[in-house]
């Protein structure tokens, strides 16, 4: 089958992802994308031209050997594809679902120059899901114990990836997580319909089988301090994310019915408020406005729709082209009937006599000159005020570094925004203490966090060897 010619490969069109019908799925929490059937996955994999110097890989922060695993899929050799993928990527079932492939790997695919790129994300998801069903056929080897102990703070994608890599190298890894369940944004932020929690749990179990220990309900900075952990462990990796919500600082933000996206999504996802049997309450109003244009805003809006809102509007101060969300999320949101109030700047949240939200007052914007980020700067049009009527406002303006941990450790050098500063190896201003993911980059992506986890694991391994040599 590998004998398939380039000409034959070029003839195959990009396969489409089967998905739940928009009008049905916008009322349930089941996954939107249904995954490729095997034959379709093989066909899609055969579209890959197996370039001698694949460009796609250069875009991947964890350096997945994309052409290799896809070649195995094209041959129908799923165990080999899975071993190849899992060797490079600790959480492929997650990244196959949430990575912005269009700006990462697929945009580099040569097939995209004339037509559509190979659906690398779909194939990654296919192989990862195959692996979840065939754990028995996949064995990962763990190096002999080194006797070194490493503490990882935070169980989001950065922490989990680092933990997995370090465990494979034979180190004893303990992950400390503040919440009662591991996974970080993957469990409290990204909704079930995009990333089922059972999948995250299964990926975490795989890491635990490698020997990774996870302790929940431990808030570093409160339950233990960083200096204490440094004392007890040979190295520490801080990956506590960017978990501080941003509000708009406009009048009316403390009215009832105003949520940060973090609170709203945590109530619905982590605390499972979508389940009628769950005990954590959440408001289920008829009309919602969500402020922001990233993945978080799309998730909050689509969640509100599923929680029964008849009308949900995304309010964003720039145009659609400037939205930072993944293309697929914007597309799915539109299909599900989410409205878009673009070029709109919220200036006040309006409330009733009883202090419940009744609307969001906005100004219309026009796009001016490009700013430092290259995006056109939005400017308000005087006198253009209008009101988006709603009973709930969700602020999804991104998040910043949570100072809970860093405040208790003055030796840790931070930048102006409160993010931890690291050198090119991921080491902080404290020797033996490393950091990565959103706490270093500010709110970024799952795969960048994983890239940090993977690279820093290598750096920690090198550091431990150097420390050992210098001690002798």
């Amino acid at each position, binding site marked *: 089958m590998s004998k398939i010619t380039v000409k034959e490969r070029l003839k195959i069109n990009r396969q489409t992802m089967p998905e739940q019908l928009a009008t049905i799925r916008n009322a349930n929490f089941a996954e939107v994308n249904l995954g490729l059937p095997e034959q379709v996955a093989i066909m899609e994999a055969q579209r890959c031209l197996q370039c001698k110097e694949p460009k796609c890989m250069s875009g991947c922060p964890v350096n997945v050997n994309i052409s290799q695993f896809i070649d195995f899929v094209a041959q129908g050799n799923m165990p080999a594809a899975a071993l190849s993928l899992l060797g490079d990527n600790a959480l492929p079932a997650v990244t196959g679902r949430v990575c912005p492939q269009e700006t990462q790997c697929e945009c580099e695919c040569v097939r995209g120059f004339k037509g559509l790129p190979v659906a690398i994300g779909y194939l990654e998801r296919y192989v990862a899901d195959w692996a979840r069903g065939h754990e028995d056929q996949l064995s990962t080897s763990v190096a002999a114990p080194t006797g070194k102990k490493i503490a990882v703070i935070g169980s989001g994608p950065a922490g989990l990836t680092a933990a997995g890599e370090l465990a494979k190298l034979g180190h004893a890894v303990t992950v400390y997580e503040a919440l009662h369940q591991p996974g970080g944004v993957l469990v409290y932020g990204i909704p079930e319909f995009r990333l089922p929690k059972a999948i995250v749990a299964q990926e975490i179990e795989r890491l635990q089988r490698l020997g990774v220990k996870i302790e929940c309900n431990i*808030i570093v900075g409160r*339950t233990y301090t960083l200096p204490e952990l440094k004392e007890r462990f040979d190295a520490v990796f801080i990956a506590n994310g960017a978990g*501080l919500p941003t509000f708009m600082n406009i009048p009316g933000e*403390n009215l009832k019915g105003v949520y940060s996206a*973090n*609170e709203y999504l945590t109530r619905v996802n982590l*605390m499972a408020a979508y389940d009628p*049997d769950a005990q954590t309450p959440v408001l289920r109003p008829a009309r919602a406005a969500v402020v922001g244009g990233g993945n978080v805003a799309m998730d909050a809006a689509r969640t509100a729709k599923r929680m029964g809102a008849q009308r949900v509007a995304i309010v964003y101060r720039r145009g659609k082209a400037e939205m930072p969300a993944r293309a697929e999320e914007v597309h799915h949101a539109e299909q599900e009937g989410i409205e878009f109030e673009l070029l709109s700047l919220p200036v006040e949240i309006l409330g009733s006599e009883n202090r419940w939200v009744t609307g969001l007052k906005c100004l219309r914007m026009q796009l001016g000159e490009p700013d430092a980020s290259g995006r056109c700067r939005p400017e308000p049009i005087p006198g253009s005020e209008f009101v988006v009527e709603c009973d709930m406002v969700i602020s999804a303006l991104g998040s910043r570094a*949570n100072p*809970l941990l860093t405040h208790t450790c003055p030796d840790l050098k931070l930048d102006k925004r409160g993010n931890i500063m690291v050198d090119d190896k991921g080491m902080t201003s404290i020797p033996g203490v490393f950091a990565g993911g959103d706490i270093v980059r500010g709110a970024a992506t799952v795969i960048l966090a994983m890239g940090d986890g993977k690279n820093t694991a290598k750096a920690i391994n090198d550091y431990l060897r150097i420390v050992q040599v210098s001690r002798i």
Partner: protein
Amino acid sequence: MHKIVAKAQLSPNVTRLDVEAPRLAEIRRAGQFVIVRRGEGSERIPLTIADSNSASGTITLIIQAVGRSTRELVAMEPGEAIQDVAGPLGHPTELISSGHAVCVGGGVGTAVVHPIAQALRRAGARVTSVIGGRSREWVIMEPELRLLGEVVVCTDDGSYGRKGFVTEATRELLAAGGVDIVYAIGPVPMMRAIANLTRPFGVRTIVSLNPVMVDGTGMCGGCRVGVGNETKFACVDGPEFDGHLVDFDLLSDRLTTYRELEQAATACAPGACRVGLNKI
């Protein structure tokens, strides 16, 4: 898992649970709280660490059964275990090490004031506690507080101690002079009344705010409170604040956010309906 090792009923709706949590017992300080999740599917709720015993590795929770989550907790028996206890959260109490501190506790707030009184006494301050309840059976923690200093008990009906509210007794103490700081913890109207009372005397007043919380780590912003025209997150910036700066109207208002949903849920709590009928 955190095993319950002892349980006692302190008043008709206040229960004391001693819970295994060795690390917390060792490091907690007055004013700090934990987030408790009874089991799979339960809500995360904040509860003050009312006391601890580092020798036995236990912390004390004193719980007023007001809704579904608290009722489920107080229905637990020794030997059973609470799934999640996370902390210690919040800033420790600002203490004074000399002078006279008045600790005012209303209802279950008396349990929250107790560790503060303990810490003040240890730091070297003189402590007077003013505690209250509807009638005799609603007064809690009196013996524990007596160990730390003078205690004034007030009951609404005069069935025990003096008749009247804690505010009146506090006013007299303030009028007598020599009060350096007041700690007031209880229902929002009581804290507001005490803060209004101490303001003209210029006596520093610390209150402990109890907004609805989720994570308790500054991640969700659900615990927003207004303090001196600024929005603060009670779980990380508090829960104790300068009572003269707190926007109590905002606090009471935000506490009603889930009232309708809570009432529906409370109807399903233990004691409210029989096994098997607990689904709406």
